[in-house]
């Protein structure tokens, strides 16, 4: 079993997450309906949480952990608000 450098692994994972953000952004622009865009927005937020954590791994800074926590909590709130407005719009 070969030894894997955590820094290099974090870098590769960051590239992959960036790819994911790019794909989600394409859905955010193209998305035929509003719920598609909301889901893409939520996905970008969650990928950003992972990106911040990977940045924390590669720089050995502990405070990135708190940034990721705040981002995860607030991101959830934004999605809930969007969902409520989508529901309210389709109600009547």
């Amino acid at each position, binding site marked *: 079993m070969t030894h894997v450098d955590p820094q290099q692994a974090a870098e590769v994972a960051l590239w992959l997450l960036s790819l994911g953000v790019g794909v989600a952004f394409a859905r955010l622009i193209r998305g035929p309906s509003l719920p598609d865009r909301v889901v893409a927005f939520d996905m970008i937020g969650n990928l950003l949480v992972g990106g911040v954590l990977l940045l924390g791994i590669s720089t050995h800074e502990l*405070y990135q952990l*708190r940034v990721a*926590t*705040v981002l995860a*909590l607030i991101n959830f*709130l934004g999605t*809930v*608000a969007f969902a*409520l407005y989508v529901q309210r719009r389709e109600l009547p």
Partner: protein
Amino acid sequence: MKSLILQTATRYLFPLLVLYSVFLLVRGHHEPGGGFIGGLMAAAPIALCALAYDVDVARNLLPLRPIRLLALGLATAAGVSIGALFMGRPLLTGSWVELPMPGGGVLDLGTPLLFDLGIYLVVLGVVTQIIFSLATKSPLHWERDES
């Protein structure tokens, strides 16, 4: 439209968010954090309650009206910063007290924490006032309700 899932989740998330905002407020002077981001985090559970339950429920969570919270915070921050003048030092100078804690640690307490508390209350007041104004139809609804 009341969602049972969202209401139950709010019941668990509320203390978590409030605790985290206080955590950000207290550790703010030496590390990332502080009054502003703590106040924003404190407004998040209020907004969550306004979404999950009702705006009136969220209003009753606050001990004071948002505008009074704002005034109280501004008075605290201004009082602390002017207080340094009475001690013969320049405006906004912080003074620190080192309290020995059981277990060998030392607790650094200073006036910057009080200043941050003022900012916390100002931001909380402004953001909750904005949320309530946007959630109700008229921006002056709150004023007419109380007086």
